[in-house]
């Protein structure tokens, strides 16, 4: 039998976002695979060069929908580094809370989302419903459910009220109480075991060679987490663990995500307890056209640990009121482009969506 060309995506129920994989298959074995991004390219990097430093905050959350806050924090941290801005302490703690809540939301969605390619739809519905509770917090805190535009250059937009803190405590308790249900539904499920266990094994050498970050590398037994290796905000002041596994298969990647939810809950609780009371949560923009402020010449790279791995912004300023160049490092760039081409040949057709799901290939951050 000869080779057949199959298009997986961009319109496919098992596909995560607007992304396509062209597969050349023989029977159900993938012989060659070619990633085809570009369905979503909106030219963010060019758009950002044409907007003021502060207006860009409202543009960049659109780069990645499941976890938009990482864009704001990377951009803000890079600009603060160039402009040498001192962020108030309370703002840093609030930033941490927002980032970890976004992390929980994305992990729940992604753990439940495995139900899509597997046909276990209850998990997807649960994931969406529980994520919604966190979106409620964001709505109370920032006024928006998805695109928050809350973390700005020099701090956060407004203070966190005791009422919202209370809401976070309650939601965390609820999420924690739901975790055993997820474990029973997904991780003790025979379908999940037979489709994920021992499948799509990525070895440590392969992961390092590809430059895979995040759960992809942690599932091979390496404790690489930017929050530990290169701590930003106050991650060096809170206690949390970096869960690792040794199998390197799809199951352990998914299970690590699940375990990380508990660690994020731990971090948010510590942050809520240790956050100082203060009214100052941002650096004042000053009177008049504060939005058009200039940033001194220089360049800086800021990166954070997103749910998919290392996410970063490289920002260049030529001393004007708009960025000269901004480059975005999408976290799923290695596994979404090089990984597909290099790794997927030899696997079966049904494994392709599992790779995309457990590696969290997010199309918009590859395209930008």
């Amino acid at each position, binding site marked *: 039998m000869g080779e057949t060309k199959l298009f997986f995506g961009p319109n496919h129920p098992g596909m995560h976002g607007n992304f396509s994989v062209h597969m050349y298959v023989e029977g159900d074995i993938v012989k060659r695979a070619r990633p085809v*991004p570009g369905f979503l390219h909106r030219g963010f990097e060019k758009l950002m060069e044409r907007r003021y430093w502060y207006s860009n905050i409202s543009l960049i959350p659109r780069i990645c929908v499941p976890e938009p806050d990482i864009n704001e924090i990377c951009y803000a941290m890079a600009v603060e580094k160039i402009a040498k801005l001192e962020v108030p302490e309370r703002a840093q703690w609030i930033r941490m809370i927002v980032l970890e809540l976004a992390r929980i939301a994305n992990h729940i969605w992604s753990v439940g989302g495995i139900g899509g390619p597997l046909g276990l739809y209850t998990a997807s519905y649960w994931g969406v419903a529980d994520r919604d509770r966190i979106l409620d917090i964001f709505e109370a805190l920032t006024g928006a459910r998805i695109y928050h535009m809350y973390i700005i250059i020099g701090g956060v937009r407004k203070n966190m009220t005791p009422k919202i803190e209370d809401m976070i405590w309650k939601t965390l308790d609820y999420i924690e109480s739901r975790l055993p249900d997820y474990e029973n539904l997904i991780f003790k499920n025979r379908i999940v075991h037979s489709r994920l266990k021992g499948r799509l094994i990525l070895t440590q050498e392969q992961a390092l060679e590809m430059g895979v970050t995040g759960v992809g590398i942690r599932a091979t037994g390496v404790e690489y987490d930017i929050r530990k290796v290169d701590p930003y905000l106050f991650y060096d002041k809170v206690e949390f663990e970096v869960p690792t596994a040794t199998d390197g298969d799809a199951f352990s990647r998914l299970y690590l995500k699940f375990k990380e939810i508990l660690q994020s809950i731990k971090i948010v609780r510590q942050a809520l307890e240790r956050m100082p009371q203060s009214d100052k949560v941002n650096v004042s923009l000053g009177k008049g056209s504060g939005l058009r402020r200039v940033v001194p010449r220089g360049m800086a790279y800021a990166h954070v640990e997103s749910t998919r791995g*290392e996410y970063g912004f490289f920002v260049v300023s030529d001393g004007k009121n708009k960025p000269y160049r901004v480059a975005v490092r999408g976290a799923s760039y290695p596994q979404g482009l090089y990984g597909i081409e*290099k790794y997927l040949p030899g696997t079966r057709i049904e494994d392709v969506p599992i790779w995309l799901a457990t590696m969290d290939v997010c199309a918009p951050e590859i395209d930008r």
Partner: protein
Amino acid sequence: MTNSMNEAIEALGAFQPTIEVIDEREIKVSVSPDKVISTLELLKSLGYSHLSLLTCIDWIDDNQFELVYILFSWKDGGKFIVSTRIDRNNPRFVTVKEIWPVARFYEREIHEFFGVKFIGNDDMRPLFLELWDDKPPLRKDFDPLEYSKKKFPGREYRKDVLGEAKKIFRGEING
């Protein structure tokens, strides 16, 4: 600055780099184009083995492109921004896909958006854009508005958004 960063800077001395400290864990190293590959190889052997990003900056006033390689160490969290400037009129550079295989895609992207050719990387097909027929779009002299006008001549541009908003505010039209 961490110990290994100090050691790396010492070892880099032979390449006569211009060093700029951005942060306690972030250093920018500018070298001449012929020394980039050796600098990158040396840094990789010293533990800066993760290529975070490979990108390009268009310095149109100097008629140069700046290629930027960001290396990260998983051991101590140090970052090296290695940069070099190449001629903008004939932008060509050597590929680093042998050192970091994933760089192939970054190079493809830079070729598409800036027009820099990478010698040794034979795969220079477009990655994101389809049927693109103008100059590389991330160059500073590319004007998106002009391009849109040329490409979609029937469309209305520069709508008076502010004037319309004022009218809605005054209650003259129903927004």
